[in-house]
């Protein structure tokens, strides 16, 4: 049985329950191939937006996600996929994404694409981002990107099930409990 609030279990989700269909997308992965969200059915997908030049939030987010995934039983780790979607496609090539996400976990996927494709995915998920020039411009290409930092849990049936404010990621045990509860409902 798919897990939802009030499905008969007493479990209270740690994150904010959304329960809407997840908008599908296809982007370029860190190996240069194409990854489609709907191709990840059967897994829990933990998805977040960021960029590889991000000085602070993205490293923390990815380190937390790595620890959260590692806290799961081995079988559930194999059924949990982290997706890091860039909001800076001009600089974040597949190679840059591979180096970046690979540092946190070889299992992570880093997705990039055209500016339009990225904008479409960000809009579908309500993600905010905005490039901001730094005061000290270097070679005219020194900018940062302000962006929202939520984590989206897509359940094994492709539903945008749960939304996590970034500050929730620090509690790895409660994140793991949500993931295990969702996976337990999806059957083995």
């Amino acid at each position, binding site marked *: 049985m798919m897990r939802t609030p009030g499905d008969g279990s007493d479990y209270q989700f740690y994150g904010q329950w959304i329960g809407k269909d997840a908008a599908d997308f296809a982007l370029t992965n860190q190996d240069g191939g194409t990854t489609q969200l709907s191709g990840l059915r059967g897994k829990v997908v933990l998805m977040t937006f960021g960029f590889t030049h991000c000085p602070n939030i993205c490293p923390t987010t990815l380190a937390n996600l790595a620890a959260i995934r590692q806290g799961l039983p081995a079988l559930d780790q194999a059924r949990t996929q982290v997706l890091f979607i860039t909001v800076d496609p001009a600089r974040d090539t597949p190679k840059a994404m591979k180096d970046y996400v690979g540092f946190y976990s070889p299992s992570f996927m880093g997705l990039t694409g055209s500016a339009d494709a990225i904008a479409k995915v960000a809009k579908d998920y309500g993600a905010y981002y905005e490039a901001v020039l730094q005061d000290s411009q270097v070679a005219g290409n020194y900018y*940062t990107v302000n*962006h929202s930092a939520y984590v989206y849990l897509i359940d094994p049936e492709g539903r945008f099930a749960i939304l996590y*404010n970034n*500050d929730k990621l620090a509690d790895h045990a409660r994140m793991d409990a949500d993931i295990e509860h969702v996976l337990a409902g999806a059957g083995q």
Partner: protein
Amino acid sequence: MALMAALLAGCGQQKATVAADSGHDIYMARCAMCHGVNGEGAPGMYPPLAGSEWVDGPPQRLAAIILDGLEGRAGNYNAVMPGWGAVMPDAEIAAVMTWLRQRDGKGPVTAVEVNHVRMETAARNTFWTIEDLRNEPIR
């Protein structure tokens, strides 16, 4: 709100405000048809915005209404307001809010603040009602 701002600041500099002049253009394109070119509203149908406590009050509440719309009696006004969240990006909503509020001497609203409300209310799939807004204060 403060937390989100802090998080985003970590990924770059905060833009302090959104230009209010673009807010006027957006207002004329999206809002003036019902609320009037000067925000005067229409009796029995569309509430005035100029000097309204709903405009000048908590920006989160106003952002929530613009994102997901409002139905049910709001005072003496009966028209349903559609939600604009699917067609207006956060920066546009912030710009129109900033323009409306600055006319009343209130401070600007950033796209980051609007995005916070968008995400905190992401589960919503119906119009707001006055009762909802009273019962579910938006952080």
